[in-house]
């Protein structure tokens, strides 16, 4: 995975998100205080926000380039997004929620609903309505829904916020398993240093919309860097 954000200026009210960096993943943690622009960064990458100036590319494919006017529509980006509130479709049962992205892209290929449901331990919940799920169950359904669209990059906004310590540990294990099973690069926002240490092999710090630090950790064995050796950051 190679995600480049160059010359980004995205006004955010009192300040602007102004960054210029390159990420190589495969699992990147974005950290920083509340209101630093972390969620806005995810929304920018997903295409839900438009920067005033930016050149954003994912694996060489231009997502937005304000110099040339190039813009890849949200639905064509192949970027999965799990917002903090999960945004599960309340009128659809679990099976229809998770099939939404799979149906939009035709044949599901290796990412079959059955397999994803099994890995995420939501197979017994498929017929349930969203309102009858617990917080942890909703979390797993939202991740399954994003995965079934076969994303090239999965964005997770505070995947463990609002969960107790036991559930947090479970979600952490689950994310590790997901990466091993499906190999989808992830970029997640987190407040928790534990979470970052356990998951992210690349850590990006934001403060008031500016890049505070960007470092690559050797990373836990469960997240070996994919592909050739990483290049130094610019």
């Amino acid at each position: 995975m190679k995600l480049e954000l160059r010359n980004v200026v995205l006004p955010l009210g009192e300040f602007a998100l102004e960054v210029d960096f390159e990420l190589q993943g495969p699992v990147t943690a974005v950290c920083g205080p509340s209101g630093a622009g972390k969620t806005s960064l995810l929304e920018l990458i997903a295409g839900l926000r438009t920067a005033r100036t930016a050149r954003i590319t994912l694996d060489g494919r231009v997502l937005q380039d304000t110099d040339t006017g190039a813009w890849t529509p949200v639905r064509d980006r192949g970027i999965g997004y799990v917002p903090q509130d999960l945004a599960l479709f309340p009128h659809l049962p679990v099976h229809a929620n998770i099939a939404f992205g799979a149906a939009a892209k035709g044949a599901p290929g290796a990412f079959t609903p059955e397999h994803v449901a099994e890995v995420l331990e939501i197979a017994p919940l498929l017929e349930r309505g969203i309102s009858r799920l617990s917080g942890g169950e909703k979390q797993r359904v939202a991740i399954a829904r994003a995965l079934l669209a076969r994303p090239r990059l999965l964005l997770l906004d505070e995947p463990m916020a609002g969960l107790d310590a036991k559930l947090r540990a479970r979600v952490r294990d689950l994310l590790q398993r997901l990466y091993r099973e499906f190999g989808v690069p992830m970029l997640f926002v987190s407040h928790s240093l534990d979470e970052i240490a356990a998951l992210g092999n690349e850590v990006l710090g934001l403060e008031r919309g500016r890049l505070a630090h960007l470092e690559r950790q050797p990373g836990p064995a469960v997240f070996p860097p994919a592909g050739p050796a990483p290049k130094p950051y610019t």
Partner: protein
Amino acid sequence: MQAVGFTLWVCALGTLFILPAGIGLAWLLARREFRGKSLVETAAMLPLVLPPVATGLILLRLCGRNGVVGAFFEHWFDTPIVFTWRAVVLTTGIMAFPLLLRSARVAFQEVPPRFEHVARTLGAGEWRVFRRITLPLARRGIVSGVVLAYARALGEFGATILVAGNIPGKTATISLAIYHAVQLGQDAVAFRLVAVSAAIAFAAIWTSEFVLRRGRPA
């Protein structure tokens, strides 16, 4: 009492007739910014505030044999609009349009855009997002608007009498039949029709409120 069945039927057609445009325009007004938006919005609401007779007169001019719409319709379908049941459908529909538009617009505005955003990240195009996410989530407000529009159509008088006339058995709705009965001094007939229309209006408004209440979180 023939007027009762006729009214229920043509008003249902009138409401169906405005449904696609009402829902489409409501979505546009709720979700898109465009030049002249407030102008379109105001024009669409005009039938609510204009005297019904004024709206009727405009429709009569447009749909008469020499009017733009009337001439077009007669050319292609070899039949007139004015003073036929088609005029009742058209007039009741247009008079009810603002109520449908307003309810549907509010219903669309109440759908949190984040559901649509996520649907797009899952690869869904705009039509699929609308059909699978926006419309089902707004359905209660829309159904309520449809029922209100239908109730408004049932009571329409001023515009209908100008465009459709008051031809018993052909264009006479409940409102027109009440007026006709009063003119002839047949108060008993008039009050029977009043009772029927009150019952229908009550049922319509109660249904609308019931549908909306069911949609609200406890």
